[in-house]
């Protein structure tokens, strides 16, 4: 084991990549599922080990292939990376058991091994973005995760999934290409791709070539914002989430946008923020305004949606607004709130989309009128949905409250009281759309189509309930989430110039 230990950062990428190859060779969905399950359950072990190491011993620098940075590719892991890696791998492990039945139900048998292959590739890409310290390497991982995501979305049963995947492919590729243009411009003025080296050299470039640096910042912002679905660049997200297989939606909602947010945070705070007076640029104001627009407009659209998956998708856009609001506030409490919400929102959204998957599995529909009385037939599933839904609103006792509390404190620290009112106001809108679903599901008479329905098998029920339980747990015991996020925020803000 001691021979493996120093290579943990590389294993984060290598293990799922090998798993993907094995899954591609599997003939049956069951074999591929076992491979995916083993890999998914192994990853959190590595991730937690890395997280512990970064918390106790500081940042890890792993030289891929033994080449010294800045010449070779460096995997650089500090608290922030480790936090995101832990989130992605734990969510993957928690929801994996759900996949077997849900996927066998929703996609054709011969495609199942390919589904698991694509999932593992996507996992490789997401973990790769979070762990690498090389800006161009991050692009390659971004494309690995994106390309496999397009395939995962296209596996949806409805033919609209194909169009959703195509539209996401176009938008996602534009986003990734913008990111490469930004990196190219930075490379032109600094001559390096290593983010630490970049931060050290960018200050010099800022003095001689400020326009190039601003253009690079703009390209990277727009490119990554397309991937994280920052309003108004979210157009791909609702259809992609609505028509992808349920399990895929749960996985993507919990991980893909969150990793893109990490990338944005890394560039704002560790690269540009560390090298130039980023406060002198209007970037924080732009982010705050767009976040507020997301919180209100996307929430308002969600209240008018009649399709549950689309409604939750718009709610995701709104919730991403809270996270980016924390980034825009850029003070200790605000950034902590944003980073905590990355985890909290991931857990509750995964629980919500898994519940939807369970309803579909039991023969229910996802249009709101088809949900009538589903709570009486599937009480445990809807209980999980209810808890996670309350988390979305930010009811005290759920993890959503903790995130919003820190965001509100951050807003007050930033001297803007009206932001607190706006955070409260947008939460009121989420009461409307979550409340509408809860009313239909619990209080109405069950429709005849779901008369035979009951809670799904344990393999599907347990992950859903576990995520809902986590939503409550992190509403009370915040030492783990807020502790680590606060630590990450402190080191990010401490690195600012």
């Amino acid at each position, binding site marked *: 084991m001691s021979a493996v230990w120093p290579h943990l950062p590389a294993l984060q990428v290598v293990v799922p990549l090998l798993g993907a190859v094995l899954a591609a060779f599997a003939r049956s969905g069951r074999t591929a599922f076992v491979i995916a399950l083993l890999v998914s359950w192994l990853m959190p072990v590595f991730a937690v080990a890395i997280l512990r190491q970064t918390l106790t011993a500081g940042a890890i620098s792993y030289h891929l292939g033994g080449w010294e940075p800045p010449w070779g590719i460096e995997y650089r892991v500090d608290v922030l990376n480790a936090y995101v890696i832990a989130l992605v791998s734990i969510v993957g492990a928690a929801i994996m058991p759900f996949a077997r039945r849900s996927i066998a139900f929703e996609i054709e048998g011969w495609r199942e091994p390919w589904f698991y292959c694509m999932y593992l590739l996507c996992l490789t890409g997401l973990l790769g973005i979070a762990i690498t310290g090389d800006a161009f390497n991050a692009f390659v991982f971004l494309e690995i995760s994106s390309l496999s995501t397009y*395939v995962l979305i296209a596996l949806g049963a409805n*033919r609209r999934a194909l*169009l959703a995947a195509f539209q996401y492919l176009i938008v996602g590729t534009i986003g990734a290409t913008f990111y490469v243009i930004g990196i190219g411009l930075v490379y032109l003025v600094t001559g390096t791709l290593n983010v630490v080296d970049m931060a050290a050299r960018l200050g010099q470039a800022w003095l001689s070539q400020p326009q190039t640096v601003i253009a690079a910042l703009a390209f990277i912002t727009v490119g990554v914002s397309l991937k994280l679905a920052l309003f108004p660049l979210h157009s791909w997200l609702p259809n992609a989430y609505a028509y992808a297989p349920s399990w895929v939606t749960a996985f993507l909602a919990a991980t893909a946008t969150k990793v893109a947010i990490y990338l944005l945070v890394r560039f704002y705070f560790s690269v540009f923020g560390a090298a130039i007076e980023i406060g002198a640029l209007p970037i924080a104001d732009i982010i705050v305004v767009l976040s507020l627009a997301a919180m209100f407009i996307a929430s308002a659209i969600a209240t008018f949606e009649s399709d549950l998956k689309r409604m939750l998708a718009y709610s995701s856009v709104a919730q991403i607004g809270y996270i980016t609001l924390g980034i825009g506030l850029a003070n200790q409490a605000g950034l902590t709130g944003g980073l905590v919400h990355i985890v909290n929102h991931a857990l509750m959204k995964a629980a919500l989309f898994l519940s939807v998957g369970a309803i579909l599995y039991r023969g229910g529909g996802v249009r709101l009128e088809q949900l009538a009385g589903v709570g009486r037939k599937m009480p445990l599933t809807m209980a999980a949905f209810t808890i996670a839904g309350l988390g979305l609103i930010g009811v005290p006792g759920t993890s959503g409250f903790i995130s919003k509390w820190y965001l509100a404190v951050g807003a007050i620290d930033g001297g803007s009281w009206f932001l607190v009112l706006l955070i409260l106001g947008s939460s009121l809108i989420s009461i409307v759309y979550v409340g509408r679903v809860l009313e239909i599901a619990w209080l109405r008479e069950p429709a005849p189509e779901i008369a035979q329905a009951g809670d799904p098998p344990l393999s599907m029920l347990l992950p859903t309930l576990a995520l809902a339980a986590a939503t409550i747990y992190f509403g009370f015991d915040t030492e783990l989430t807020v502790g680590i996020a606060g630590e990450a925020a402190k080191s990010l803000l401490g690195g600012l110039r």
Partner: protein
Amino acid sequence: METLVNLAQHYNYVVTIFLMLAGLYIVIARGNMIKKLIGLSIFQTSVYLLYIEPAKIIGGTAPIIDPAFKVYSNPLPHVLILTAIVVGVATIALGLALVVRINEAYGTVEEAEVLEKDRDR
């Protein structure tokens, strides 16, 4: 006048930016999915040029340590773009595969017609 001279001296960047904008315009303006992918490909290719141009030194050779050569081109952007080309090929291939599936499911590759066909269901 000075600007014009400046642009003429950097004509390669003018071409790159033109291709970039033309590609992006095609992606946005065309409803035909194949044309959209062609636009996307032009857009991506222009970025390859953006990386390669500053790396190429006129009269420079490959970076081989030899007393006979003094001027080298920067190999790193070339390598990066090799990777980016592979990514681009994969993207276009996947995009075309999706268009084939869309054509099978809808019988058309015009985005407007596809949306129209789903509306009346």
